[in-house]
């Protein structure tokens, strides 16, 4: 049977040959065109020869003439092949100029010679082995071995792709063959091989061994159906099932029956998968009944059993040899020898046949010896008997007298009374399976060779594979998210020095999780509850539009009045230029009414017209940084410009804030006289400005101690401080003494200057940080509300918040920003050992916190710590002193479509009863108001 297989394998291999060559031809260059045709032709011939001798052997009476014909054909084929090959070589050499030395180059050689190579490999081997076989006389069996070899070889050839050939070819070829690599040597070898092959075939063709072989081999397809036993007996015996039938009718029925078919299939399967079963371990087999037992006990039970006895009786009756009751190990080679020759032939596994024969055959090829060796090892490996496992898990249940009454297997959850049953159980498959499952996962439990179970196992493996795949993907997905997160938070210092992660985290798999990952930039992040609370609180403390408008109006009026006052003063100082200058300035105003009517852009509103002295203008524009040289300028104005400072300039006004500040930069040291002048003249100019709509009364107060005047309309009061850049310089002693009585208090002037710088710093630095202004407003509110926070001066607070925002390295949402501020203070930033808050508006190192007393710092820190934990635990409303907002009601889809939901919410803000709509509105309002402030 096995020989037959191989035989067919060989012919099959022949077919593959053709295919391989054809493939080579197609894969080749155009330069090949001639050669492949030739090769193909050669192969066709050869193939024909092969089939030819198939039939010849089937006839089993091949004449000498026929043999001659074969020889001729083969020789012709070989020579043709030779010719074609040389042509092929030449062609190939031409086609591949890159392969400069064609002959010795192994890759080229192998590649080019591929179709040729595989052929001689088998042929030569044939020669060797068959010679040995002929000597031994056992023609058929050696052939089996040989053909196996050729079969495998051709199979490799066919399977291997063209370029791979150099690797496979030397591996499968005997060393002698590889020695023949040289071109001429190769040719001769090929020729020799072919010739000898043919000759040899002819020689053996007439042998009886071949006949036998053929019968088995060729007829293998139909041969399965057991023939009636040679002895004409009354009994109808089925070899496969080992039963006898009462009559021919029953026998026929049996042969067509399900049971027989099954058994037959099993036998076939066993033959085919013999090697798979061989490794199966210590299964015992009753040859007689063809029953496999899992253990010695089971075998003993079987031998004692009625079925076995029946078969023994039958066999005795039939006069068939009865094998010894010694069990045969499954997969062992010897078992095949036991039965009648024919039965042995049928039942024997292919490999075992070879092995058993090669035991006797000393001349068998090397490959077979190897196989045999493996087989022997396998045998040595198999345990003689299944070891009972899991003794520890069987508890004895003892009766009152201490005698073991019954046993309980904890693994399988079953009981037995008999110690023998316990033993059996411990060796049993079920118990072993449980043991494998629960205790020792690598325990080998033989799987029943049933198709159903195999399928189940396959399905399970498949499932596992799929699950692994899913997990792997999932990890990829997560890894990717991590990456993405790193990306969005990029620019920050690496927060954590990544330790060596397990390698599976390093997957890059984009396109998988993208729809769920953070797609947009940070601004599109979903709003957290903290964010909503902060934004809602912010909306709550943000001043109303009309309040803002009021303030704007008053400030604007004051500024304009100051401007006009400055003009008046300038005119007064320079009466001669009055006529010349005035129209020019008016012109200018008319020219650029939209440009600068007041200090609305929070920059210095310079009173100095462009037509005036450029030196003065430069000073004014520098906002206090100018030098004292301006004093010498004849045309310098006393009041150079006005600028909004403090809350107004920073946009930090909260609801209820009524006091805003303006700082007027003077050319020289501001004096009380000047201040008085301003206080007295300002109402006039204010009144002048009051056009049609304004009916409110402005009241101007002089606050000499503050170095300021206060303009108020009853609701809003504007503090106008006078200062000058000159105040910063340490005045010479004489100067101070002389002006001492008249000059405004120095500290107040310096404060005003500092306020100017702070406003500028704020606009340049803090205002641009995301969430910063919002959080400072929130913090202002906090400082207003909570006594512990009151000592924190506003500027220090602004520095703190902006520093915290800046250090985050990435944009923060309002909620995160507030929390981060609290984190910073909680961590002891404001405590004494902390670094302090450096004032960026001073040249020297100045702590903006000043001399905050230790207890205040302590209280501040403690309060922030409490707030931090409240924020972390969802009580931000307590920090902000507001009602907790209701949860966002998810429209539909819940978590599945978060972005979609958000969008739809924004679209339909009107009908949202919860906070969401409010927030959107707030944001819009905020934008609008910010625009209006900045404009």
């Amino acid at each position, binding site marked *: 049977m096995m020989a037959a297989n191989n035989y067919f394998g060989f012919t099959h291999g022949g077919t593959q040959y053709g295919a391989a060559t054809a493939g080579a031809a197609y894969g080749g260059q155009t330069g090949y065109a001639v050669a492949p045709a030739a090769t193909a032709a050669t192969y066709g011939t050869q193939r024909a020869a092969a089939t030819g001798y198939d039939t010849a052997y089937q006839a089993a009476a091949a004449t000498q003439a026929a043999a001659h014909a074969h020889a001729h054909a083969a020789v012709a084929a070989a020579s043709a092949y030779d010719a074609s090959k040389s042509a092929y070589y030449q062609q190939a050499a031409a086609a591949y100029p890159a392969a400069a030395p064609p002959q010795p180059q192994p890759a080229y050689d192998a590649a080019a010679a591929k179709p040729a190579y595989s052929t001689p490999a088998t042929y030569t081997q044939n020669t060797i082995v068959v010679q040995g076989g002929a000597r031994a006389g056992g023609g058929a069996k050696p052939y089996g071995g040989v053909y196996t070899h050729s079969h495998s070889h051709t199979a490799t050839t066919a399977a291997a792709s063209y370029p791979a050939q150099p690797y496979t070819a030397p591996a499968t070829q005997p060393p002698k063959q590889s020695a023949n690599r040289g071109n001429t040597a190769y040719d001769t070898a090929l020729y020799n091989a072919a010739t000898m092959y043919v000759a040899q075939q002819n020689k053996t063709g007439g042998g009886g061994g071949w006949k036998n072989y053929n019968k088995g081999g060729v007829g293998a397809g139909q041969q399965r159906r057991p023939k009636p036993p040679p002895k004409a007996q009354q009994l109808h015996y089925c070899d496969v099932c080992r039963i006898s039938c009462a009559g021919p009718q029953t026998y026929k029925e049996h042969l067509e029956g399900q049971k027989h078919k099954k058994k037959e299939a099993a036998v076939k399967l066993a033959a085919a998968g013999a090697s798979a079963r061989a490794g199966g371990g210590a299964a015992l087999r009753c040859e007689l009944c063809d029953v496999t037992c899992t253990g010695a006990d089971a075998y003993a039970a079987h031998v004692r059993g009625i079925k076995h006895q029946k078969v023994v009786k039958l066999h005795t009756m039939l006069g068939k040899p009865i094998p010894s009751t010694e069990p045969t190990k499954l997969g062992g080679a010897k078992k095949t020898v036991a039965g009648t020759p024919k039965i042995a032939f049928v039942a024997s596994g292919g490999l075992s046949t070879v092995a058993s024969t090669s035991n006797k055959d000393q001349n068998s090829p090397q490959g077979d010896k190897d196989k045999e060796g493996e087989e022997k090892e396998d045998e040595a490996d198999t345990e003689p008997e299944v070891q009972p496992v899991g003794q520890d898990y069987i508890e004895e249940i003892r009766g009152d007298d201490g005698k073991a009454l019954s046993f309980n297997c904890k693994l399988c959850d079953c009981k037995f009374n008999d110690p023998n049953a316990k033993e059996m159980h411990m060796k049993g498959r079920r118990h072993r399976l449980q043991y494998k499952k629960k205790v020792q996962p690598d325990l080998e439990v033989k799987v029943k060779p049933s198709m159903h179970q195999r399928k189940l196992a396959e399905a399970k493996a498949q499932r596992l594979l799929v699950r692994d795949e899913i997990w792997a993907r999932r990890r990829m997905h997560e890894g990717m998210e991590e990456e993405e997160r790193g990306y969005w938070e990029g620019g920050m210092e690496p927060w954590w020095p990544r330790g060596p992660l397990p390698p599976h985290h390093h997957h890059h798999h984009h396109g998988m999780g993208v729809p769920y990952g953070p797609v947009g930039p940070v601004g599109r992040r979903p709003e957290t509850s903290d964010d909503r609370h902060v934004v809602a609180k912010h909306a709550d403390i943000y001043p109303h539009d009309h309040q803002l408008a009021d303030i704007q109006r008053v400030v604007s009026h004051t500024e304009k009045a100051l401007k006009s006052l400055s003009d008046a003063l300038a005119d007064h100082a320079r009466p001669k230029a009055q006529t010349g200058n005035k129209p020019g300035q008016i012109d200018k105003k008319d020219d650029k009414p939209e440009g600068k009517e007041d200090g609305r852009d929070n920059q210095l509103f310079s009173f100095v017209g462009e037509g005036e002295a450029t030196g003065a203008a430069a000073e004014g524009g520098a906002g206090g940084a100018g030098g004292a040289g301006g004093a010498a300028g004849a045309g310098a104005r006393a009041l150079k410009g006005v600028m909004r400072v403090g809350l107004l300039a920073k946009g930090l006004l909260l609801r209820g804030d009524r006091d805003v500040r303006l700082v007027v930069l003077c050319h020289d040291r501001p004096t009380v006289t000047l201040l008085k002048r301003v206080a007295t003249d300002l109402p006039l100019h204010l009144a002048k400005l009051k056009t049609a709509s304004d009916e409110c009364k402005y009241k101007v107060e002089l606050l000499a101690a503050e170095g300021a005047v206060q303009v108020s309309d009853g609701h809003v009061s504007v503090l106008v401080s006078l200062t000058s850049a000159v105040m910063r310089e340490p005045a010479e002693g004489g100067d101070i003494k002389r002006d001492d009585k008249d000059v405004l208090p120095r500290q107040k002037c310096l404060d005003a200057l500092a306020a100017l710088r702070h406003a500028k710093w704020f606009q340049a630095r803090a205002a641009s940080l995301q969430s910063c202004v919002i959080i400072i407003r929130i913090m202002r509110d906090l400082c207003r509300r909570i006594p512990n926070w009151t000592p924190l001066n506003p500027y220090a607070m602004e520095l703190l918040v902006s520093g915290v925002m800046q250090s985050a390295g990435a944009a923060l949402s309002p909620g995160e920003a507030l929390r981060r501020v609290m984190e*910073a203070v909680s961590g002891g930033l404001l405590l004494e050992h902390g670094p302090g808050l450096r004032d960026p508006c001073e040249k020297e190192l100045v702590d903006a916190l000043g001399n905050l007393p230790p207890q205040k710092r302590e209280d501040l*820190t403690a309060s922030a710590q409490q707030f931090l934990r409240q924020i972390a635990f969802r009580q931000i409303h307590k920090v902000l002193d507001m009602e907790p907002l209701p949860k966002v009601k998810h429209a539909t889809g819940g978590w599945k479509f978060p972005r979609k939901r958000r969008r739809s919410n924004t679209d339909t803000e009107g009908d949202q009863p919860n906070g969401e709509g409010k927030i959107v509105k707030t944001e819009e309002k905020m934008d609008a108001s910010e625009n209006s402030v900045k404009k």
Partner: protein
Amino acid sequence: MVRGAGRGGRGMPGRGGMGRPPFNRPRVLMLRPPFDLILAEPAFPRCKPAPDDSALTQALLKRHAELCPTPAEQSAVLSLVTKLQTVLDNLVVAPGDFAACQLEEVRQVGSYKKGTMMAGKNVADIVVIMKTLPTKEAVEGLSNKVNEELNKLMRAEGVGLVSCGSHERGFTVTSTGPASAAVRVLVTTLHQNLRKLEPEVHLDYKVISSHLAAIRHSRWFEENAHHSSIKVLIRLLRDMCARHTGLEPLTPWMIDLLAHHCIMNNPARQALPINVAFRRALSLVAGGLFLPGCAGLPDPCEAAHARAHTALDLAAQDAAAATAQTLLRVVARGGHRYVLGLQAFEGGKDISTEITVWDGVVVSPLAPAYQETPEPMDTDDKDDDGVQDGVAA
């Protein structure tokens, strides 16, 4: 499995749920690292002379010297570990007739391995990886076998005896020699066996996987945290945590990560001085490093997104932060001797729960913020997590 991806991790230790399908994570809330003064230095340049911190440094070093195990202790535990390792190695290589379980590998882990053992806590840890599944019987069998072999070895050398006591993590080998030492043998199994575990038959899944994690932890530590300053800080922090109720729940692994972070994670990548690092550790925990909603310390030995502190439950997170906050202010007032344990505070009271007065400055402890609510954490994202789990399960 993503732990605590949502804001404020549910404080679920371990990573139980395998059932969550992979691709339905709603969104990623990118958690932020907390404010860290060392990293934020550019934004907060020092504008006043740094305070003299030598007192704190001295105190830290003094305390550390006290915390180091004595040579006698070290040698006792060393000899026990060596013997046990020998016995276990033999069982790995040649199990002989020992059939209760099959051992794959034996590894030293924990503070012994890391070199962060503390005086008076002479317990080393060894993880035994079983090839077989860790049933309670297997652990029992291993314990008996080890006991027998070890005693054989001890008798041969004529040094004391050992006893083995099983517990839910494995068993503990205690030597009753002149200097007592103990080795906890922690049982785990191969990674691929994890899903075969059954709660009634085997040791707890969480325990088993935590032992596997312990192996990863010691490996990470060996590779990344071998700097002596880190070990010094770990001892100090562990001691501090052990003496203050609020900080007790912090696991050694969290402390390892925290110490490593405090010493090594700075712009210069040079080890920080111990006093700076100690203050930093306090201020980080006080600043909410271990609070929900904070990126915390990413666990380098777990899958992406895992945060070290999610092993704590919410109340513990709150308590830890509150305690650290109070201690921070105490240290700022110069009370470091009490915090470090160099000086007992009013007869052993926990200073983090008492109102103290330092030079007229009153330092008071903080109230817990976390409240057990019937509907915990009423936020949208928390809610999302809940829904998600519900759907997925």
